[in-house]
């Protein structure tokens, strides 16, 4: 009986502790808020949003032209860079690379930062139209030299606003609620 007694006294608490530790560790590791926020991969062209949107005050929609008219804000096409860079900083090494890409027509593969699952159909249109600032979800991009993911972009974050629970950083009063039925985003 002694063996069993010892097992119960020492072994059981130890097992419970081990299981708990595993669950907590794994849970912590796969917690999207942890590993998704702060993701800031190196990009093929070191484009700085701080220089463009911050220092030079270029509005977001000057380049991300789709935000008001379509589902996607859209990544500007390479030729769009030359709306300015035909005359600005034409001697830069990176602009030279961009020009080469534009002229050759080969694709420029940016590292994707904000990635919603395939079953989420987010639409920029209504959000931009309501006057919700880009920064509410994308963070202070105008301060970032290298763009990083600022918010988790999980469903909870969507629902916080849609249910009217969130305090907006860039709006003076809480915004009215938005639809919360599944079909709003999932279809």
């Amino acid at each position, binding site marked *: 009986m002694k063996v069993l007694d010892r097992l119960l006294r020492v072994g059981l608490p130890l097992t419970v502790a081990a299981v708990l530790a595993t669950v907590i560790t794994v849970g912590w590791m796969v917690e999207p808020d942890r590993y998704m926020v702060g993701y800031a991969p190196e990009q093929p062209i070191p484009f700085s949003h701080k220089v463009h949107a911050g220092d030079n005050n270029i509005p977001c929609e000057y380049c991300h032209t*789709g935000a008001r008219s*379509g589902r996607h804000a859209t990544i500007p096409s390479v030729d769009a860079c030359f709306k300015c860079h035909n005359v600005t900083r034409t001697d830069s090494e990176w602009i030279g690379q961009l020009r080469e890409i534009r002229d050759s*027509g080969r694709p420029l593969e940016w590292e*994707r930062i904000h*990635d919603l699952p395939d079953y989420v*159909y987010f639409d920029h*249109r209504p959000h931009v139209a309501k006057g919700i600032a880009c920064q509410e979800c994308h963070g202070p991009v105008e301060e970032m030299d290298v763009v990083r993911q600022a918010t988790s972009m999980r469903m909870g974050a969507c629902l916080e606003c849609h249910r009217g629970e969130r305090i907006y950083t860039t709006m003076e009063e809480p915004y009215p609620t938005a639809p919360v039925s599944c079909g709003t985003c999932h*279809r």
Partner: protein
Amino acid sequence: MAEHRNAVPGQWKSLRELKTGKRAETQALHGSAPLQASDLADGLSRRRFMTLLGASAALAAGGCARSVDRGKVVPYTNRPEEVTPGKANYYASAWSEGAQVYSVLVKTREGRPIHLEGNDEHPAYGGKTSLRTHAEILNLYDPDRLQGARAGERELPQEQAVDALRQSLNGRVLLLTGADLSPAREALFERLRSQVPGLERRQWEALDNSSEVLGSAELFGERHQWRFELNKAEVVLSLDADFLGEYANGTSQARQWSKGRLVADRKAQMSRCYVAESTMTVTGSKADQRLRLPASGQAELAYALAAGLRGRGVPLPAGVDGGLLAEFRLDAVARKYHLDMAVLEALLQDLAHAGKNAAVLAGQQTGSTCHAAVVLLNTMLGSVGHCLHLEPVGSRQTLDAEGRRATIREMASGQWDTVILFGVNPVFDTPAAWGFADAFAKVGRRVSLCLRADESAEACTLVIPVSHWLEAWGEYMTPDGMRCLQQPVIEALHGTLQGEDLLLRATGLEGNYLDHIRDFWANQVQPAGSPVPFDRFWHTVLHDGIYRSPALAARGNRLNGDAVAARMRELDKLTDKGHTGAEVLVLPSPALYDGRCANVGWLQECPDPVHKMTWGNALLLSPAEAEKLHAETGAIVRLSLGSKSWDLPVLVAPGQADHVAVVHAGGGRTTGSVCNGVGFNAFELADRPETATMELVEKAREDVVLQTQEHHNLEGRDHVRLFSIEDYAKHKEKHYHVDPYLKKGYDFYPEREFPGNRWGMVLDLAACTGCTACVLACQSENNIPVVGPERVAKGREMHWIRLDRYYEGSADEPMVLQQPMLCQQCDNAPCENVCPVAATSQSEDGLNTMTYNRCVGTRYCANNCPYKVRRFNYFTYTDKRQPLDLAANPEVTIRDRGVMEKCTFCIQRVNSARAQAKAEGREIRDGEVRTACQNACPTDAIVFGDRNDTSSQVARAWENERSYRVLEELGAKPAIHYLADMRNPAVAQASESGDHDEHH
């Protein structure tokens, strides 16, 4: 099994149900969870269980693996001005199939076509298009498309292929194309002839209206065809002409016909439709009075009607021999073919009364003799030029049967050095009795310009792939003067050239086909002296897709009375023949036409509108004929014609005439990964002089004829309702059906509120013809996979919308009712409260939404759905072969194994319209959201919109007196109303059909 309760006496879905009063036990009982869903339960061994357990664990482990790699995001390098990622662009284009030209709008996303709709500016289509047009998307992305040229076994690069083609263009060259309605193409072949003097072009069609053309040519000395304005007709008589389906242009005719069938209120007038036909078609299923009459008897009926009209004082056209006509007597025809004399009398009365507002149509299979009679009838009625028009055929000089046989004889006798098959497949679709393949083999140089390596290409010495029409330029003109431009909407997927460009290059002529079309349009189409610069003219037409130029003028020859007399005398001889055996009719298949598009899975799996058969064809026999053979649906019968015989599966077709064996074309292809070996080749049976004898060789099997009708059964409640217009006008109280329990507020759910939009749909059964275009449009819009014949046999087809076909009356002469059935988007949805994971739920705008990422596949919802409209992905059905992925709609999730799905009311369109409205700071306008099925419906039987907007079309239709909800007594409160079917019979039916809704 519960005893079959039939709330509507006399309604049945299948012959088995009619005979036994029970449904098929195998599949229907299981609804969306068919028998085979539980096939593991029988005799599952321990070893099998362990295997499955291990496999599940491995799959679970594998399936849960999650990649943190977020991938790349690749913008355009040089963005085309009109393309915004995520936004669809529409381009007007056109294509032709046989003798029909379809003006279409191509929806493209990021440069790839994903959906086709009718061109809303084309007067004949008004935004609608045919069933097969929707499927052309899949045809474009067919993985079987030929990617490189070859000569025998040797593969050729494109330049060498053009060289080889150049060498073939030598001596006497026969170019076979399909029916051609393109004047510019005609001019192109004329230009080619300057380089290749021995070139001759002939138009080769397996199924065409040559008997109509020949019938008129004899009478007027000029080739004519009919064009219809059935919206003006008060009485329509169809003599074996499936004018709502495969005869002439079913889409545009259905649109016209439905205009006379709109019953907005009690005072509405309705046109009357008489159909005499050999087998049940969609047209026959919408008939007010239907007669069973073999194709060979149609001419007699037509002449007897003409004689009857004359007897009522309608004058004969000058030169027609009245004495000869008087030999045809209506009562004799009625006796010979067992037709109801009361109906024939009523028909005669209606025709005489309607005069120029009556239209008589005849199908191709009735022969040119009958067509001559139809010209005579319509001339007597005065409807030519009013309800229907005789117009010259223009550039469409299709070879008739004799012309095709002469061509085969010429090939056999070595008259042609080269034969080029350009988009035709005569080895497959020529009646086998004519010996095309043998004659073709005697030609020295055999070239095929084709999309796929088809049966004919296999017999060719040089095969060059060509572009699909969505990758190519073209233009068309129909004889009414409507011109359509066809423009490429995607670069050739496999680097192919279009056939016209291949020929231009091979002959060394200047420019490409686009230049040729532009030159042609600049010189021939744009009005001379127009102040508009050609470029602007061209771009306007390119944008609109259509241009109206003057119609081709008929010469206006007088009707030749002698020709009519000769035809009548010939018929006299036929009359004596009597019936021995059965006459074989080869008809176009409602889904596959003549089989040219048989490799498109959507079409193979598209249920036949009447018989609900998928994947293959069958020998259609009348119930009495089948009884004689002791054959049931699924039995194998040996059909003999002369010395040849075939073992064919039988489908017992209620409503078919006796002594007729009908086979649909399109089956029996021997090439193509989808269609190879599906069905049998009906052209084998075609054009043999003998009548058929038949004997049973094998008893009925379940897996031979795959019909979808008994799947997803609604347990025989009165879901489809019918009034005759007379009863409808007489009824005092509203027909709007509310169950007494619901009136008392007998509902334990709180009333839901829909503050914003509340989406609803109204389906008008009087307008619905069952044409099935909605099924194809839905499939294209919503990425619905093809599951294949084995799974259709198990009741696992995935279509979100189905057409339930009900028969009423006897098996011999039934009436057909069609009912589109799709998710009813119930307010109190029975599926929602049984879902353990809340994967399906109500939205605030009245949709019953399905959240795939929550679904764990319990299938409780499907079992609890009274409408049986939920579909389960037992496997990953999506065909992952390249480039099929390009055909998918990026706005709709591709569903994977283990997920339930169903109609969403095209939620992607609803959400997109809402987002756009919000962006513009306005409400969604009525008509802004149109579901794919609604867009496709040629008769506008489907109305969709916001019920909260009282001025919307749907809100008005909702209040229609004919409207009812299916299974309303269950209290599910569907968001779909049906408007009861409406008929306008001339002779009172034996069973009163007006009191259906009083059965509760």
